[in-house]
């Protein structure tokens, strides 16, 4: 991995498989998603990946419907959604086994800049464009027609062969996580309900 964890090891079994129950952002697979730990929702962000070791490092924080709704509406940034009462770093093998996990007492401040979202980044570019159009000095707010937003077409979709409709469906939902019989980690911050 490209960053060293400054945290307290916790039992990986407590986290289960962190299987996605709702994908929030996807490229080459889910990268930001909702999972469940001990039957409670968490937000998962892929912070790093090591192809040679076949392991990726995840940031895992508690979440709830209010936070997720704000994230999806652009009222809360990715960093704000991850900035919760507790934060774990989790090393998960590509076969979904959690191989190591840590509690990060210093929260996001212990995660180096390239391995967490840039401050202010929203969940999607569309939400950011909407935010800009709502700013007080926005041309559209001032009564001017917004400029054409097409910056560059990177793919010539007119000349490339298209895949039939069957390939254009939304991603399939994540698999259901099996009940985890293990007790939660013993610290107060992890055993108390942080989902508010």
């Amino acid at each position, binding site marked *: 991995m490209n960053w060293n964890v400054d945290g307290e090891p916790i039992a990986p079994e407590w986290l289960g498989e962190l299987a996605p129950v709702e994908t929030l952002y996807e490229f080459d697979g889910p990268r930001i998603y909702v999972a469940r730990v001990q039957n409670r929702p968490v937000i998962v962000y892929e912070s790093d990946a090591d192809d040679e070791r076949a392991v990726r490092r995840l940031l895992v924080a508690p979440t709830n419907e209010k936070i997720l709704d704000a994230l999806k509406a652009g009222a809360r940034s990715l960093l704000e959604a991850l900035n919760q009462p507790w934060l774990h770093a989790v090393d998960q093998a590509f076969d979904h086994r959690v191989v190591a996990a840590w509690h990060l007492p210093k929260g996001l401040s212990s995660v180096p800049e390239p391995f967490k979202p840039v401050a202010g980044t929203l969940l999607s570019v569309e939400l950011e464009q909407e935010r800009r159009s709502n700013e007080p000095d926005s041309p559209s707010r001032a009564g001017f027609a917004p400029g054409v*937003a097409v910056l560059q077409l990177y793919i010539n*979709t007119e000349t490339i062969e298209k895949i039939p409709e069957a390939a254009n469906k939304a991603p399939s939902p994540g698999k259901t996580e099996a009940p985890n019989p293990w007790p939660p980690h013993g610290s107060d911050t992890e055993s108390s309900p942080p989902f508010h």
Partner: protein
Amino acid sequence: MVCKTIPCVSADFLTQAERNRAIDATSEGACTRHGLSVFSTYASCEHQQRAFSRLGRYIVRARLSAEHGMLAETPSTRNPRHHTWWPYLGVQREALFAAHEEQGGVG
């Protein structure tokens, strides 16, 4: 796409399957894991770069045509510009991409 170096290197253009990721994917996921995620707008790439700075500081672009592989729109609710590109065998993927001239880069 977002790359760590200019010129791009082949490691930046490996599919999930080539990275041995998502080996148990089913349905559409079993197909898309053999392709590469690409975006049709600079803004989408720039957003991805800020969301995942570790991917690199350079946004690169290519003009893909039929000879380079298959392409499908694979949008999701919050990623409507997302496409999947399945390069043909023998296509030197990294050679198709060059730095986008307008970028400043992050991280």
